[in-house]
Every structure is written in C-alpha cells, then in structure tokens.
C-alpha cells in the first residue's frame, strides 16, 4: 500500500514536470528555449520510464538517441540559422489559439475517455532488460528491424540530397 502511494506521488510529481516542460516547448518564443524545454521533457520522461515503468533500457536509449542525437541535432540547425531574438515576431494571443485550443481540448477529452475505459492491473516491478528486448527484436521483429535500418539509411541519403547547396 505504501509503495502504491509512493508511486502515485512520483507519478504526479513527474507528470507535472512533464506537462510544464511540454507547455514550455509550445509557448516559449525563442526556438532555442523550446528545444531546451523539450530536452527537459525527454529527460523527465526517461526518469519516469525507470522509476515507474521498469524499462531502463528504453530510458537509456531515450537519453542517448532523443536527447543526445535528435535534440542536439535540432539545436545545431537552429544555431546554423542564426536567428536573433529580435527577429522573432510570433504572437500567441490570436483567434487561432482559441480555435486550436478548443479542438485540442475536445480531442484530449475523447482520448482520456478512451484510456479511462482501459482495463488491466498494475504489474509489480519487473525490469525489462536489454536482453529481453534483444530476443524479440532479433527474432520476431528481425525483418522490421532491418527495414528500419534501410529507412534510416534512406533518410540519411535524402538529407544529404536535400541539404546540398544546389537544389
């Protein structure tokens, strides 16, 4: 019982941090700040994976791939574009915001309604290690795995083609 309460407290605490950082991504004007906020969001998510969802391997991959590669990559691009704070002219308080907010809230309520009806129990901590995942990944999902590698390769080639000076 005590463990449950502890879990709930952790969940609420991490959830709040996640939501705050997510809002930061959306509402911070400077893209660099947004990217840093996303970094925080991903970091907290990784913590939640370890703390609540007993998935240390995915958490590590999240840190390495998402935070270490993707977001840093995005930051590089932002730096490359050399955007000065003075250039940023975006305004949030527009009719578009309220319309979009309404749509998103409706959607959120729908989705919450859906997840509220999910049945299932709380399975006590049982860590999923890299080996367990590897077994699945290299047997049942081997083909998919290879296809994803092809996809990444193609994406790399595409990125090179797109970013070349002469288009």
């Amino acid at each position, binding site marked *: 019982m005590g463990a449950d309460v502890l879990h709930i407290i952790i969940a609420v605490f991490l959830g709040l941090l996640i939501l705050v950082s997510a809002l930061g991504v*959306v509402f911070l004007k400077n893209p660099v700040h*947004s990217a840093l906020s996303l970094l925080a969001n991903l970091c907290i998510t990784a913590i939640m994976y370890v703390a609540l969802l007993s998935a240390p391997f995915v958490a590590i991959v999240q840190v390495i791939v998402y935070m270490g590669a*993707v977001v840093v990559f995005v930051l590089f691009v932002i730096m490359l574009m050399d955007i000065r704070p003075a250039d940023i002219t975006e305004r949030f308080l527009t009719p578009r915001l309220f319309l979009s907010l309404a749509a998103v809230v409706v959607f959120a309520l729908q989705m919450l309604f859906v997840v509220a009806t999910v049945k299932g129990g709380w399975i006590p901590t049982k860590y*999923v290690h890299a080996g367990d995942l590897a077994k699945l990944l290299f047997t049942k999902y081997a083909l998919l795995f290879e296809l994803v590698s092809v996809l990444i390769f193609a994406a790399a080639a595409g990125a090179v083609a797109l970013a070349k000076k002469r288009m």
Partner: protein
Amino acid sequence: MVMGLIFAIGVITFCIGALGVLIRKNAVVMFLCIELMLNGANMLFMAVSKFKGLIEGQVAVLFIMAVAAAEAAIGMAIITAFYRRRGGIEVDKAELLKW
C-alpha cells in the same frame, strides 16, 4: 491509479504537442512539437507495455525512436533548404499551395 495517471500524462503531452503544431509558425518549433507528440505516444506505449506485461510495447517505442531519428534528419534537411530559399523558417512563407 498510477496507470491512469500515466495514461493521462501521455495523452496530455500528445495534445500539447498537437496544440504547438497548430499554433506555431516557426518550422523548427513545429518539428519539436511533433517530437513532443511522439513522446506522448511513446509514454502510452510504455504504459500499456507495463500494465499488460507485453514487451512488444517497448519494441514499438524503439522503432518509433528510430523513425523519429530518420524524420529528424529529413526534417532538418528540408528546413535548412527552405531557409536557404525563403530566408526564414516561418511556415507562412510557404504559400505555393495557396489556392
């Protein structure tokens, strides 16, 4: 209870990401919001994986991450090319499709 909380966090993260896509004009931020949406979806996958005792959910998350990495490469390339052409990354500069 914990399960419901995590589901809610995932859903709301996803929706905040969607909101960002809808209201931001900066292409890079839109891209970040898409990552946010993916992260929200990932959380749901992880949660279901945990509560249903299925490792498949984590496999799916790994694939999503891989695809997101590929997407980042392409997306950033497009944004760079776009920036070079139009001198900015605001999506309202892309209006060739306008009626």
